[in-house]
């Protein structure tokens, strides 16, 4: 906010000392993406005023978060993600850090933090043993089907 004021005063012909002038010239190159203008629900008029002295660059697709991507752009957004090994490891790391900082690394962490992890572990193991657990149901159904087909 302060910088945009300063840059706008610069454009309007305000005065700075010679030593600081060149620093403020760099403000024009500072990326100002005006993230609120690109949110899914449209720009929030209450909080964001159009800033006169600042260049409004639309946010490139690569930097948008998932909730800010329009549905039509979704396939290209997915393809632009980093799928290299270090990218995948980074994604897991970020997910882990997000969960850790929200539920465990707090002053009064409760048992829910680790219980959720264990519940996911149970569901994970269930999905991978689903076939063996329900093998007897499936065997019964196929034999029923074959038995019926004999008499039709």
């Amino acid at each position: 906010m302060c910088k945009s004021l300063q840059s706008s005063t610069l454009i309007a012909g305000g005065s700075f000392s010679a030593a600081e002038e060149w620093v403020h010239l760099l403000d024009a190159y500072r990326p100002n993406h005006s993230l609120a203008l690109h949110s899914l629900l449209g720009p929030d008029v209450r909080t964001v005023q159009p800033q006169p002295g600042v260049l409004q660059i639309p946010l490139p697709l690569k930097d948008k978060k998932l909730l800010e991507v329009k549905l039509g752009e979704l396939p290209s957004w997915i393809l632009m993600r980093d799928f290299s090994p270090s990218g995948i490891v980074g994604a897991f790391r970020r997910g882990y850090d997000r969960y850790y900082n929200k539920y465990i690394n707090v002053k009064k962490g409760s048992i829910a933090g680790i219980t959720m992890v264990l519940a996911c572990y149970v569901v994970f193991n269930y999905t991978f043993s689903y076939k063996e657990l329900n093998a007897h149901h499936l065997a019964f159904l196929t034999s029923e089907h074959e038995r019926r087909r004999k008499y039709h």
Partner: protein
Amino acid sequence: MNQNLFTSFNIPVILGIPLAVLIIMFPTMLIIPPKNLINNRLSSIQQWLVKLTLKQMMTSHTPKGRTWSLMLLSLITFIALNNILGLTPYAFTPTTQLSMNLGMAIPLWAATVLMGLRFKTKSSLAHFLPQGTPIPLIPMLIIIETISLVIQPVALAVRLTANITAGHLLMHLLGDTALTLMSIYLSSSTITIIIIILLITLELGVALIQAYVFTLLVGLYLHDNS
């Protein structure tokens, strides 16, 4: 019925890739290295447990034996966590596989024996002959002591495997019984369910105790040979 009982011990495989690797690595996600002086609750509990275990295990060792602290501590944490996580429903317990337990037991035992033979050759060989044996018995006793030495890693591995597997099997059997009995005699089904609850508490104890015993014995072999 036979096929159903032991299928819970099959290594989970997805598209030909054994998932056991992921499941073995899962307990590492639950252990958090403490970053600050005062940490969050989970980290503080872990720190306290580690300190307790360390003190209990390593005070009786010589300084040379205490260089093994990290190894023994990670061993007991690994085994205890794997056993406890295996008590959750549908979970696969890696410590039920004899291959894994042998893989833990043989290198550790061999390391203690080799360490003893290298640094204190006379004293470690002297363990083969207890003090005060009558002279005619000496040849037989040396053979017996050698056999008991060689059987140590096998005993370590098989003890852990058998205990955990037996506990899991018992729980599966009783669970099936309770389920079948529910439609016949509801009262005996409730009694079976109470037995299962007691068994689960026992299993929790066994899980921890087995880890402790494993580590303790390795420490004992270390103490003898350091």
